[in-house]
């Protein structure tokens, strides 16, 4: 015969039932894993969000719910936390991407909690699907960014006239010095003429440096002098920007592949600005693929020998019309029905302020935008 439950058992049972009812109704997905990353439990919301039934995924590695590069790195993240105890996500949370059973990635906000149960460590991930959330907020943010840039372009108009005047002086001087040196070197110059020609060329070089300083001031002005360059993980910049750019696109079935060189992951950049560049390029790529039967987006990185990393955003869209290609990075040039045509102009300003360059080339059935960023070693 069964033993009657005592009051504490009943109390615990009620509490458990209460907790279960709460978890069953919370719209966020909840995934419980052990410290090796094996899935222990998968809530009803998680089943709906990811397309798997709990009994299909319990016992699997949780990395199956992530796209690359997190997928292959997650075991290392866990090991690093077990070894060092340094928290990079627990109690902090982050915006990233998850992968649905159908292969599509979608943006999420992930919060992770840690607990010890019977001397065993478990992690609970709470996952909020960002697909639809804040879409309006994001459009507003885009507009604000664009308007702020337009404001700066307008200030630039005023700034440009004084700049032209300022720049004209060293350029005129360079021209005069070079002409003078040319005259002095005509025929068979005497030794004192050679000395004078050398001096003129030295003066020309000094003026060229001055012109360069003026241009640098203009760049600083354009980037608003508020940049904060730090060593950042490129994989994180890409993952976050990609997650935000995917907001509102789930129904379009965009296939995203992120292929970053794991050996060259550190760049010396202003995080917000470079995420703006990535966000703009990824959104452009998504929009370019709307009428295309194949919607595949690839973000990849390739190290360069000169202390830079090339980041590429490739789409399978309709390509760029010839008439736009020459002026694509100029402000107010656009092939879109909506938009002001300054997204790529912003990208170029930011990339050049980082000492890099940005360009595009036709891909296999679409377009590849590429830009370079200084590596952490080069930046330091």
């Amino acid at each position, binding site marked *: 015969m069964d033993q009657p439950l005592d009051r504490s058992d009943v109390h615990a049972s009620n509490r458990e039932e209460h907790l279960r009812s709460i978890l069953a109704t919370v719209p966020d997905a909840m995934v419980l894993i052990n410290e090796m*990353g094996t899935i222990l439990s998968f809530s009803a919301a998680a089943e709906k969000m990811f397309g*798997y039934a709990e009994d*299909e*995924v319990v016992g*699997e*590695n949780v*990395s*199956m719910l992530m*796209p*690359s*590069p997190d*997928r*292959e790195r*997650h*075991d290392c993240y866990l090991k690093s936390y077990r070894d060092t105890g340094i928290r990079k996500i627990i109690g902090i949370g982050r915006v990233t991407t998850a992968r649905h*059973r*159908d*292969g599509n990635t979608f943006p999420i906000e992930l919060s992770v909690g840690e607990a010890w149960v019977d001397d065993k460590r478990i992690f609970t991930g709470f996952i909020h699907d960002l697909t639809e959330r804040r879409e309006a907020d994001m459009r507003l943010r885009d507009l604000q960014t664009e308007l702020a840039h337009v404001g700066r372009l307008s200030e630039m108009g005023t700034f440009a006239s004084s700049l032209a005047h300022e720049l004209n002086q060293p350029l005129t001087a360079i021209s005069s010095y070079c002409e003078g040196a040319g005259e002095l070197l005509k025929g068979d110059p005497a030794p004192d003429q050679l000395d004078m020609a050398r001096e003129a060329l030295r003066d020309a070089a000094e003026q060229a440096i001055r012109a360069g300083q003026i241009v640098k001031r203009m760049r600083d002005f354009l980037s608003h002098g508020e940049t904060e360059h730090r060593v950042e993980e490129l994989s994180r910049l890409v993952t976050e920007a990609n997650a935000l750019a995917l907001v509102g696109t789930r129904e379009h*079935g965009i*296939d995203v*592949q992120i*292929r970053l060189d794991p050996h060259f992951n550190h760049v010396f950049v202003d995080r917000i600005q470079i995420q703006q560049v990535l966000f703009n390029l990824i959104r452009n790529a998504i929009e370019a693929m709307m009428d295309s*039967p*194949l919607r*595949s987006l690839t973000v990849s990185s390739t190290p360069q020998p000169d202390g830079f990393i090339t980041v590429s955003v490739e789409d399978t869209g309709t390509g760029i019309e010839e008439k736009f290609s020459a002026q694509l990075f100029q402000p107010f040039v656009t092939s879109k029905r909506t938009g002001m045509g300054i997204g790529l102009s912003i990208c170029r300003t930011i990339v050049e302020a980082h000492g890099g360059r940005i360009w595009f080339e036709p891909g*296999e*059935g679409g377009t590849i935008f590429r830009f370079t960023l200084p590596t952490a070693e080069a930046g330091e």
Partner: protein
Amino acid sequence: MNWKSIRLELGSTEEFPQGSVSRGYILRLPLDDFDTIDLTAFHKSPRKATARRHWSAEPDENGFIVPIEGNWAIRCDGQDRPLHVESRPLRLGGRVSVVDPDGTVLPFNIASVR
């Protein structure tokens, strides 16, 4: 539009008697009215026939589906894995097999076609 995204999930094997949803492929192929591979459409745009292999915590592999000696193969990261579809229709619930580089023949269930 007859280009389809076909998701394969590992079927029952000795190592995974219940199969495994975290191991599989996503293939993009043109299908005809009988749900078999549309050869005309394929040869018109062979680079559209992409493949992605995902295998638990291993890095994803990306590549293409290529015709080889009258059969098909999944070519990811420079490695060919023969894909046996024969002339069977590629429909939800159907089965195909893929031969790993070590010669192991792995069964896959067609988990979705869209």
